């Protein structure tokens, strides 16, 4: 806004002229704003930093210390957490989580983009009704389908497999991402499709050669958020995976907490918790712009 007022040649309204006359005042306001924001940020992020620091400290020091700095850092907690103490085996949980998340992302990308293409570009009977139903499921609490889905997968004998956690993603049940992609594809000029059709392209080649490459931002956003959601998912694995060999990281962390209860191995707990957040933070740092634009323009949370 500063540049705008500075370069604008038109006569200014009196209030703006008044603001410009008092530059010192504005600097103070700006300093105040920044200080308030920084104080809030420090308060918010301190617990996270403290956890990372605690994961690098010997156990006896964690609880006595409020600060982040320590005289002796150690990676013992990571080693003991990773190699497993007793019943818990975090290396396996990480592998399980990666498998489930990766397959879910693949499934969601294929299914949502195909469904979205159909809604955005094809004509078929009941399209409007089906689209309205799709939007309706956005506000539907997932608990309604939780019980019947569990019964279904139970009947199919798929409890204690990854199938219940992955299969729904291949059936485009994440209405939000379908919606996101429909909106995106609708905004693409349909002249491109028409031109391709004249050149003899069928739906499949229009989809793979024109729509998909142009919809990459929407696909990227969908992929990232699918990963984040499945990586953090707790209820799904809690219901479907009782065999501890199949546990995901969130289940492992929860079991760890219940097992330790006391304070003896909070160090390894925090080490594994930090490690479980690392992929999220990594993706966040790499794709921060894409993520934030995605939220700002589409309202994903």
């Amino acid at each position, binding site marked *: 806004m500063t540049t705008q007022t500075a370069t604008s040649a038109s006569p200014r*309204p009196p*209030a703006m002229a008044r603001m410009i006359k008092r530059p010192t005042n504005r600097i103070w306001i*700006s300093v105040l*704003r*920044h200080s*308030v*924001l920084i104080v809030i*940020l420090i308060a918010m*992020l301190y*617990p*996270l930093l403290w*956890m990372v620091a605690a994961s690098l400290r010997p156990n006896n020091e964690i*609880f006595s210390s*409020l600060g982040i700095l320590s005289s002796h850092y150690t990676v013992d907690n990571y080693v003991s957490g990773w190699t497993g103490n007793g019943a818990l085996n975090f290396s396996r949980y990480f592998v399980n989580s990666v498998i489930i998340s990766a397959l879910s992302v693949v499934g969601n990308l294929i*299914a949502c983009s195909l*469904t979205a293409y159909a809604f955005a570009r094809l004509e078929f009977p009941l399209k409007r009704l089906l689209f309205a139903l799709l939007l309706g499921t956005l*506000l*539907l*609490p997932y*608990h*309604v*389908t*939780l*019980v*019947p*889905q*569990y*019964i279904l997968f139970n009947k199919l004998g798929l409890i204690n497999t990854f199938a219940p956690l992955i299969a*729904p993603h291949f*059936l*485009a049940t994440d209405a939000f991402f379908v919606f996101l992609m429909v909106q995106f594809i609708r905004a693409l000029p349909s002249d491109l499709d028409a031109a391709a059709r004249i050149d003899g392209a069928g739906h499949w080649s229009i989809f793979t050669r024109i729509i998909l490459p142009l919809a990459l931002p929407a696909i990227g956003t969908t992929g990232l958020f699918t990963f*984040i959601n499945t990586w*953090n998912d*707790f*209820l799904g694995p*809690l*219901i479907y995976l009782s065999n501890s060999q199949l546990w995901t*990281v*969130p*289940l492992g*962390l*929860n079991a760890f*907490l219940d097992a330790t209860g006391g*304070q003896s191995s*909070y160090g390894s707990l925090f080490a594994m*918790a*930090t490690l479980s*957040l690392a992929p*999220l933070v990594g993706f*966040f740092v790499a794709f*921060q*712009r894409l*993520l*934030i634009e995605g*939220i*700002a*323009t589409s*309202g*994903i*949370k």
Partner: protein
Amino acid sequence: MVGLTLGPMIYSLYLAFTKYNLLTSPQWIGFANFIQIANDSRYWQSARVTLLYVLISVPVVLVVSMVVALLMNASIKFITGYRALFYLPSLLGASVAVATLWRQIFGDSGLINNALAALGINHASWIGDPGTALYVIISLNAWAFGSTMIIFLAGLRQVPQELYEAASVDGAGRFRRFWSVTIPSMSPLIFFNVLLDTVHAFQAFTGVYVISSGNGGPSDSTLFYTLYLYQQGFTQLNMGYASAMAWILVVVLAAFTGVLFFTARYWVHYGDR
């Protein structure tokens, strides 16, 4: 997609009128589940806890998000950095990792109590106290206000600058400009955030489960609706009862959404162009 949502929904509606424990086939019992719910004190406790949570945490998140978005809207410097850092907790807030951290922070000898002890105040566990346990969970949700804030921030930048200038010319002060220009211009986004945050708040689960060790304690003070539904359905295998609970939630959320949409015509303003 429709098959996997609509089919189960109808099946779930049927189950709501049955007694079913997965082992024997569902047995039609009419409205017995609903009558039992009406007389179930734990059910009402869970409804009360959830409602209290929604009524406190949604407004807190909305107000904090709006205030921070307003603070950031004017100061352009480092805005991408601020946005990213404020958003980070939203990304992590739904994870078990952060919930375990919260359990430590607010626990008996956690970060907060250690800080208080340094000031000479001794306090017991915030999670073990039925009076404060719910607020620990509310604070976890409020901590992740970043995504709501980013939506507000994006909206604030769309408010036409001429409106502020016109209001200033008419002698409107800072507060008046906020109330008569910013709020109406932002009303579609406020509507959107109220709707989504409320629907999400009704379904809070992960943090609740981890912080309360899965039992909704102490003395059911954090027995959320979803947690009680989980207990009924998946630890006691009362699938019919759980389905009935799920359908009551659907009706409540539908009613809430309906009321919100109905009131929208009085307070949500879409641009006239």
